[in-house]
């Protein structure tokens, strides 16, 4: 079993830098004008996964952004994914 102090020695500074980047991104969104969209809503939902004390945070962050439906869509009208689920019938 890995030692927690060792994990902190290896990864704390990198994780700290990434956390600051996330905070800066959210500040940037706040300073800008206009409305956000479903992407930011799901981003804020995904942040809640970090509050858990169970080691499934990464999985739950991915699920927060994922399409929860199970049936194939009628037609693919776009090739690209955008990182968050736009909702049913909104795959343009």
């Amino acid at each position, binding site marked *: 079993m890995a030692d927690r102090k060792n994990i902190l020695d290896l990864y704390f500074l990198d994780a700290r830098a990434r956390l600051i980047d996330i905070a800066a991104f959210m500040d940037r969104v706040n300073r800008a004008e206009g409305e956000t969209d479903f992407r930011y809503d799901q981003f804020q939902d995904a942040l809640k996964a970090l509050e858990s004390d169970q080691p499934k945070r990464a999985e739950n962050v991915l*699920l927060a952004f994922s399409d929860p439906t199970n049936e194939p869509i009628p*037609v693919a009208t776009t090739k690209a994914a955008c990182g968050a689920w736009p909702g049913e019938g909104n795959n343009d």
Partner: protein
Amino acid sequence: MVSRTTDDYQAMVMAGCQAVCEPAFWAGFDRSSAQGFYDYFCQLTQHEPRRASMFGLPHYTWLCINPKESEDVGLAEEVLAIIPEFMKSPNVLGIGEIGLNKNSRNEVAVLEKHIDLAASNDQLILVHTPHLEDKRKGTRLILDILKADSRIKPERCIIDHVEEHTVRMVLDDGFWAGMTLYPETKCTSNRAIDILEVYGTERIWMNSACDWGNSVPLAVPKAMQEMKRRGKNASYVDQVVYQNPIAFMSQSPRFSEPEGV
């Protein structure tokens, strides 16, 4: 690697790469005809193996029409009709990378045709799972489609680009799981190693992406260094990056285990 310069082949050899395995994939634009795919398959089975051999690298490949171009079922059927000619090539390991992109009905239909082609010709299967928000749903659809065909043996299929929310379903259903290392999308080295620590090293491997987008051909050697930083011994690292891929690909009679250094 059709998207990369010979600098990358040189770097890979110097990093200890023993062979390269390249599936048919999206070019970044839609090919306009089945003839475009014919030329691409010639490149994968003739020109690219010659280019890799200049650096002492055996080159293996997989054939298909990729999921991003599968919304046009008519085109897909034309391409599927020309694949059997190329399956006779000595470096073809199987059908791939098939799968889904946006999880549409036409993509599902084309995936099923590929699976039938693979099953009818006893080919290994390499599967692309969708990107980002589409990955969970697409992986579940793909696994259910594969399991619905009784000719398909899970141990002869690798489901690629797994992440934390899809790896369990792939392994639980008896398939191989691939973790594709990218700088930003899909999986990073650290997350891939986390997945190994949680799920073990059985039926799982990691691969470097070498495509036309932002990708790092040396991602696997870099992940090897990271595994050592975490205290993994040489046997563990060798199992994941070398023995596991060999075990899977050796199921094809076209694959020869590399001689090593």
